[in-house]
Each structure stands twice: as C-alpha cells, then as structure tokens.
C-alpha cells in the first residue's frame, strides 16, 4: 500500500483521483487545490483529507508519492518541493516550461533515486505501443518520414479565461495538444536535430497559439511534419494520429486502430495466422488493449498510474515516461518556439529568382549518408 497525495483538481486531477481511488494498492492520503469550495465538497462527501497549500500536505500527510496535475507553470516549483522531501512524483504533461528547470529536476530526482513519471498517456495506448513494437522490429525498414497530427475542439471562439488561455501559464495549443504527438515522435525517433518552418498560429485566442505546424529534422534525413489544431470542431474529442513511412512499408495509428502496410522486404512479414502479412494489415484497440482493473475515460489513464504505483512499490527507478524522457519533449517544444521566432520564409514575390531549373531541385539528404557509404566501401575493401 502506498500513500499518495494529489495536487490540482482540474479535469485531469479529478480523473486521476478517481483512478487512484479504484486502485486497491493506493491510499489517497490527501488532495490539495486552491479552490476551497471544491475541496470542501470532496471532503464532506468522500472524507479525503484536504489541503490548500502543497507544503502543508507534504509536511503532514506522510505521503510516499505525489501526483501533480496543476497548470503547467506550477509544475517545476511543486516537483522541486516534492524532491526536497524525497517523495516519488507523477507529474502531468508537459513536464516543465523550461528545459533548464526540467534538466535540473530530472538530475535532482535521479540523485535521490526517486521514481518519476510524466503523464504522456499515449505511451500506454495499445495502438501506439504496437507502433513502438513494430519499429523495434524494423517492420517498415528505415523510417523516412512521419506525419504527426492532433486535432480537437478546445478553443472554438474568442473567449475563455482559464489558465489554458494564458501564455505565461503554459497554455496554448503547443504545450497542451502538440506535446502529445511530439512526445510520440520522440519515443519513436528520439531527439531531433532541429526544427524548421515552425508556425504557432492564432485562430481565436488573443494571447496564445491555436494551431501548430513545424518540421522536425532527425538523423539520416528523416523528417517529421507536425499538424496540430485545438480549434477543430469537426472532431468530437481530441484525436492524435501518426503516419510513418519507411523503406519497407507504412504505418498509420490513432488511439483505436493501427493500419500497417508491409512490403515484401519487411522482416515482420509472415504467413502465420494473426501475424503481419505483406500488404495491408489492420489491428484494432479491441485486440491491442490490455484490460485494466478500473476504467475511466480510457485504459491508458489507469495503465499509466498502475505503472507508476507498481514502480513505487518495487522501487524501480527506470520506467516509461521518466522525467529525463519528458525533458526531451520539453526541449523539442522549446526548440520549436525559438524556430517560430525566426519566421523564416522564402518570399514569393519580385525578389524570387524566376530562372531556377526544376532539375536543380535536388534532395538535401540521402537515405544512406555519405559517411555510411564511405564506411561501407572501406569495409568492402578490408574484406577483400
């Protein structure tokens, strides 16, 4: 049994509270929020201990672990307070609004052997896990290009005055929405070499971005194109979708299904029933999702907290979505912000040369990089 405290009772916080309540291995030792009305109601009807200051909860509730679901700006100071007291931490995404903070906190937590996890729940979604498994088996060969998308209906008119609409609070489509597909891209491809052509666009908001588009560059010429909007009414709820092209096939995945096209050269191709065959394959969430003991809104929310709780019980410092891995996403987001300030664009006007020959539109990179080719030739010579 581990004693858990929870700070931040917004949509995610309340949801985490319920999921923790459905876990027999957890004793909810306290909840903390600045909204005294909400605290009062929850205390009256559920009997849970309540705190209006995090320090008070950390000092008196004797917790082993803290779940942080406050506005993003508050993540860093709260994580620091928890580390100081040697408490394991599950922090909602994005981890920190500054990479510097994130790196320091990840190092400080590691020094104390604390269990850390960030709420990138898509890594616990069956279909996205399947993509990870496929890539680990090199199913589509070398990945050459990725399209990472997320759309949803959050800001649909010029209004709203919650923390999500404030840039300084860590609101905005980039941190709230784009962080999800970017985190998946980091999971699949690792750290990018850079970002280009980033546009953080306003649609309805006064202060913050509602649309994000960007290109992320990875080693060996692989690129990821991002297309994200939280001002899309046509989708009922947030949808995150990844499409990956490789030299041996293509994968599409959202939270419900996974379509895989394998070419004849794929190492995953098989004739066995239920296995991937050459051509199109479809797998659904009904097949790919591991059952959970308590369900609310999606298996992934239970799975991520179960993972965290199990790690705390067993003292496993290594695990999915550690602070260190979330810092990679924070840093990718920051790189994109810096890139967006360049506002680099090749003009389409009188200054554009009009005598560029189409044949000179040569690709910038090659699948097999020059150094790799030299190494191949050298190896061949050595073998001779």
């Amino acid at each position: 049994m581990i004693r858990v405290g929870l700070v931040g009772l917004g949509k995610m916080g309340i949801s985490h509270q319920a999921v923790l309540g459905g876990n027999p291995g957890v004793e909810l030792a306290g909840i903390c929020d600045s909204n005294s009305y909400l605290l009062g109601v929850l205390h009256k009807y559920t009997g849970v201990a309540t705190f209006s200051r995090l320090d008070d909860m950390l000092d008196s509730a004797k917790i082993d672990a803290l779940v942080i679901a406050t506005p993003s700006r508050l993540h860093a100071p709260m994580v620091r307070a928890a580390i100081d007291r040697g408490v394991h931490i599950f922090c909602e995404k994005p981890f920190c609004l500054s990479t510097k903070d994130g790196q320091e906190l990840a190092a400080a937590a590691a020094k104390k052997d604390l269990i850390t996890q960030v709420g990138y729940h898509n890594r616990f979604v069956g279909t996205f896990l399947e993509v990870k498994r496929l890539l680990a088996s090199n199913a589509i060969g070398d990945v050459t290009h990725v399209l990472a998308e997320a759309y949803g209906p959050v800001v649909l008119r010029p209004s709203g005055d919650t923390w999500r609409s404030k840039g300084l609070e860590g609101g905005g489509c980039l941190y709230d929405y784009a962080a999800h597909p970017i985190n998946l891209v980091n999971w699949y491809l690792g750290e990018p070499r850079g970002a280009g052509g980033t546009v953080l666009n306003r649609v309805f908001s006064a202060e913050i971005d509602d649309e994000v588009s960007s290109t992320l560059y990875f080693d060996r010429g692989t690129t990821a194109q991002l297309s994200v909007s939280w001002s899309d009414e046509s989708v009922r709820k947030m949808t995150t979708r990844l499409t990956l092209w490789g030299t041996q096939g293509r994968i599409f995945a959202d939270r419900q299904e996974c379509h895989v096209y394998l070419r004849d050269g794929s190492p995953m191709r098989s004739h066995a029933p239920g296995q991937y065959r050459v051509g199109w394959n479809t797998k659904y969430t009904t097949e790919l999702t591991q059952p959970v003991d308590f369900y609310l809104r999606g298996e992934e929310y239970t799975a991520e907290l179960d993972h965290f709780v199990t790690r705390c019980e067993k003292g496993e410092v290594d695990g999915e979505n550690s602070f260190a891995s979330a810092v990679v996403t924070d840093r990718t987001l920051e790189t994109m912000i810096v890139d967006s300030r360049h506002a680099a664009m090749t003009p389409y006007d009188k200054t554009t040369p009009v005598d560029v020959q189409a044949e000179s539109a040569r690709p910038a990179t090659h699948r097999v990089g020059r150094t790799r080719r030299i190494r191949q030739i050298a190896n061949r010579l050595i073998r001779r």
Partner: protein
Amino acid sequence: MDRLLFGDNQFFGVNHMSEEKARAQQMKFTDTSAIMAVIDAAYDNGISSFMCTTHDRVAEICEIARSDSDRYRDLTFLPCMPYAHKYANAVTEQGMLGALKQFTPDSGILDAAIRGSTSLARKDIDGLVTLLIDSEMKMFNGLHTPVIWLQNVVTDLMLGLGFDHALRLFADHVRDKYGAEPGFITMNLPMLVDRLERLGVDNPLVCANINKIGFRMSGGMEAYRKALEQHRFRTVAMSVFASGAIPPDEAIEWICGQPGIEAIVFGASSRSNIVSTRSLVEKYWTSAAAE
C-alpha cells in the same frame, strides 16, 4: 423492459473501434431526417425503446416524437445523462465553476453560493445536482421515460472518488421526480454493484459492456460472471459485439447464454442490420435466459 433497446452512438460519431468509421457515420447522419429514418426502421420492427444521450440533436428527435404522437405512441425514451463532452469542453474552456455557471444560467445558484447564502455554501450538492438533472431532462418533456441512465463517465467517476452520495441522490431524484427507474451505465460492473448494494439502492438497473472477448469488462470476466449469477441487479448488456470485433451470430449466441441478462442495447445504421440483430436475438434467446 424490452429485450432489445436501440442505442444512439452510431448517430453521433461514437465508435469504439475506429475513428474513421465514426466520422463516416457522423457524415451519414448529418441530417436528423437520416437518424429518424433509422429510428423508424427500428420502431417498425418492434424495437420501441430508444436509449439516447442528452445530445442537442436528440432534442430534435424528441420534438418529432411529440409532434406526431399518434405515430410514436409506443416509442419510449431512455435518456442517458449527462452528455459529458458538453461539460468537459466547457470545463476546459471556462474552468470548473465557469462551466457550472453556463449550465445553470438562470438559477443564480452559483452567485448565491459565492455570496454564502445558500445550501451550496454549506457544500450541500443536492440542489445543484437535481438542478442539472432537471435541465438535462427538459428535452423529454411530455415523452415516456421509464428509465433514466447515468452515463458511465459520471457513474465511474463517482465510483472511483467514493462519492457515493451522488449515486444515491441520482437514484432518489429520478424515482421521486420522474417516476422512472434509475439506471447506471458503467465499465466497472462488479465494483459498482457491490457499492450500490452497500448504499441500499434496491435492485438497480445496470448497463455494462458484456461480450465474449471481455472487452472493457474491468475487473475481469470471472468477476462479471459471479456478479451476474448472484443477480442482485437488473442487467442491460452493451457492446455485445465488442465494437465489431466479434461476428454477430457468435456474439448474440454467447450473450443470450449468460445468466441474468434482461436486455441488450445495440446500435445499427440500417434497416438490414436492425432486422438481422432482431432475428439473431429471437433465435438464441431462450426463455430460460430471459427469466
């Protein structure tokens, strides 16, 4: 209660297996007349219980049923509330209190609470909850609503929080004010029925995923089987096809063989699907299973 209840997920872009299919269905049912044509097909095939969310579009269907009361004399509505996305989006946009304000616009209850002059200030939620239930029920005015369901996202949220009073309050208000049977939709049936029993909610209606492959049957197949055998509640099975993962014949044969199932809720987008599901149920549902 009828053995077959007609659900509405297919009309509003809810498909637990495929976002693409969900969107295709949403396109197909952009016009309410397209929805009505399918409801008519179900109704004309003897399926007269419509288990529906409190979606804005359902209000239009209610209006049609009211305006042609001769034709729809036997049509009953089994409302499922709340339509959660409406609230979730409002909370994201306006915060928790802002959202409450939006959904109780004329009551002034929230302002009064902030001034500290009402039961709300004493953290008494009864007034607020019954107000929200009543506002969701407005669209069904004058229609027959023998069962009123609490959506699984709320049932399971309250279950996880240990907010038992809200479950009890819902059951009482639905019985007292609407003379309806309270129903609870859940993804955690074994845990819920234990809780409801402890709360003294007598013989409640419970609707949960029950299917051959155990999809979204949290707590596990074995716990479901035990709960069903003990039969301390009235069961409506949903997702019997596991969103299409189980072939229809196999799915219906299996569900009809389970103990204590009182009804099945299913969705269909065409007359032919309705007819084939109905004939499968007639084929497999023996009198023993329906007892």
